[in-house]
């Protein structure tokens, strides 16, 4: 019989080994599935296209960075909330609202150049996301309404609002009535840091945020506050930590970061506000956060891995005429195995004979 004995301390060996084990298991499972379903395609070449090719080609590598940046930014914010037991499932909605707010500022000044425009747009993005998330915070604090439901419902509202804005006030007046904004002018576009690619400063911002978050958790009291509140809310209250403040701050921070990511997407790779702004980064970031076990530095890696599967998966789709869903299957399985292998970190597996 197999027994799970909780470890006194998380096994450090397993923290390194478990992800590798999960990746290996995913690869094996994917291999088996593909061999069965895709009879006439060389499965190993699919793996190469999925994992290796993006790393060897400078264009695709740059695109991995482009996709990783928003995931890192949002996941950092979400991880803060998750540690506190606050489930912001609607980061996608905050991302959209932040994108709208920031873009609106940029569009308002479309005939003005100035270095101050981009920071203003970023600020608007952060405030937009923050405000939107605080609705859920308010409802939870005042009425004990679960934030999962509220943030989720508000995501739908945000996407519809985007459509309304692009149909109306933010629509390009000389754009043949298509629901798109003007192309952003130079001051409203993110500076590119890797010449010839789409990699912009959002990558640097993302890495900076993740280090800041790491330091904050290690040093600052509120990090401990959030850790404790998440694992034992009542104990936290006794110790004087304010549950409501935690709810408000974590939602506002994750909302603000999501909103910033939204603005970065619009002012970066997209270069305008379109109905295509929502790309499920808000949901994927949840997975990124979990794959990193909510660790800020780990998030950089898990985001890069997920971004890699997106770029590689797209190439598999193009080169082998396979549906894009192949990437989702892969990501889903990866997360399953990752979560499963996580148990090795927290528990010891012991075999013993049951007493007769």
């Amino acid at each position: 019989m197999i027994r799970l004995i909780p470890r006194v301390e998380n096994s450090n060996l397993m923290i390194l080994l478990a992800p590798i084990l999960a990746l290996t298991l995913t690869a094996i499972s994917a291999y088996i599935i593909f061999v069965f379903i895709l009879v006439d395609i060389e499965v190993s070449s699919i793996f190469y296209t999925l994992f290796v090719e993006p790393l060897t080609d400078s264009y695709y590598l740059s695109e991995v960075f482009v996709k990783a940046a928003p995931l890192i930014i949002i996941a950092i914010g979400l991880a803060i909330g998750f540690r506190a037991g606050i489930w912001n499932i609607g980061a996608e909605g905050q991302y959209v609202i932040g994108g709208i707010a920031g873009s609106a500022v940029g569009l308002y000044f479309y005939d003005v150049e100035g270095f101050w425009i981009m920071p203003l747009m970023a600020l608007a993005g952060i405030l937009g996301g923050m405000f939107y998330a605080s609705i859920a915070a308010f409802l939870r604090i005042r009425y004990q309404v679960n934030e999962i439901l509220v943030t989720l419902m508000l995501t739908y509202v945000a996407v519809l609002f985007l459509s309304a804005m692009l149909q109306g006030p933010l629509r390009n007046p000389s754009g043949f009535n298509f629901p798109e904004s003007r192309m952003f002018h130079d001051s409203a576009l993110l500076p590119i840091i890797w010449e010839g690619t789409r990699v912009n400063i959002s990558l640097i911002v993302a890495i900076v945020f993740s280090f800041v978050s790491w330091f904050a958790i290690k040093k600052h009291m509120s990090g401990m506050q959030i850790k404790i509140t998440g694992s034992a809310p009542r104990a936290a209250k006794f110790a004087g930590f304010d549950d409501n403040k935690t709810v408000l701050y974590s939602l506002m921070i994750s909302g603000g970061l999501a909103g910033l990511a939204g603005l970065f997407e619009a002012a970066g790779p997209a270069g305008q506000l379109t109905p295509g702004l929502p790309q499920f980064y808000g949901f994927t970031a949840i997975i990124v956060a979990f794959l990193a076990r909510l660790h800020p530095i780990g998030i950089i890696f898990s985001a890069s891995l997920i971004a890699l599967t997106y770029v590689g998966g797209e190439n598999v789709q193009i080169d082998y005429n396979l549906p894009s869903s192949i990437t989702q299957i892969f990501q889903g399985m990866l997360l399953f195995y990752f979560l499963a292998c996580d148990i090795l970190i927290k528990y010891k597996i012991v075999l013993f004979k049951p007493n007769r």
Partner: protein
Amino acid sequence: MTEGLLINIFIGITIASTPLIFAAIGELLVERSGVLNLGVEGMMIVGALLGFIVISHTNNPYLAVLAALLAGMAIASIFAFLTQFLLTNQVATGLALTLFGLGFAAFAGRDYTEVTIDLIGPIYIPILSEIPYLGPALFSLNSLVYLAFFMVFLVWWFLFKTKQGLILRAIGDNHDAAHAIGHKVIRYRVMAILFGGAMAGLGGAFLSLVQVPIWGEGMTAGRGWIALGLVVFASWQPFRVILGAILFGGITVLQLHAQGFDIRISAQYLSMLPYLATIIILVSLRMRLKNKTNRTVPNCLGRIFHSTT
């Protein structure tokens, strides 16, 4: 004409709400046992696909519905195994389930996008169906609609009128105490999760077998998430699920009608109504109950149970 229109609207609302009722009532039972399964969307779409595949090959609606049910259960079993035996985080596992389910269904269904099937049509009860107005509205609906309502009743009866239901609720409220008394926490939860999967599968089947005779990837279009919201909206009470589903389905349908009637609010804002209404009504319910200590949330919802004995 107006009566005909009202009946049509009524039928339209039942069609829109039935998949939600199935998915939500299944998830309600799961959450009552203390488990939060965010993978409803993934389970629904897999059910929709399997039902569609079976009916396109066998033309047998019963087999198709059964296949959808089993498909939902099968994919829910992954969740059950991970969360109950490997003690994984329920939120993350549920999301992974949604992701995997959507991807798997899209992939496995790619050859079925050009297939057309015969829809499962409404039933006909002699005499009753002939009653003017009430006949078509109440007695000639699709058999799956009646099944959905029956399931709600069944879950209510199970939770509040049987010993096992009581145990399940106890587990949801305090799994350590329940375990101490000797109840098999894991077993109940696994059963509940599988039931939730079966119901989600049925909800998905309704989409592909009744609503439109087509298969398309992503055809659940977020209904699984709506169902999750409905469970909270219903304060984990079975009959309120019907209310929520009808409200939500109703507003969705009415919004389309409103356009036909040329109501002068733009379509996007009309489309927001169901989501906003869900939040508003939930808040107002909470406001009225603020003074009572309303612990309708199963206390152990989402917390991992691990026995050390």
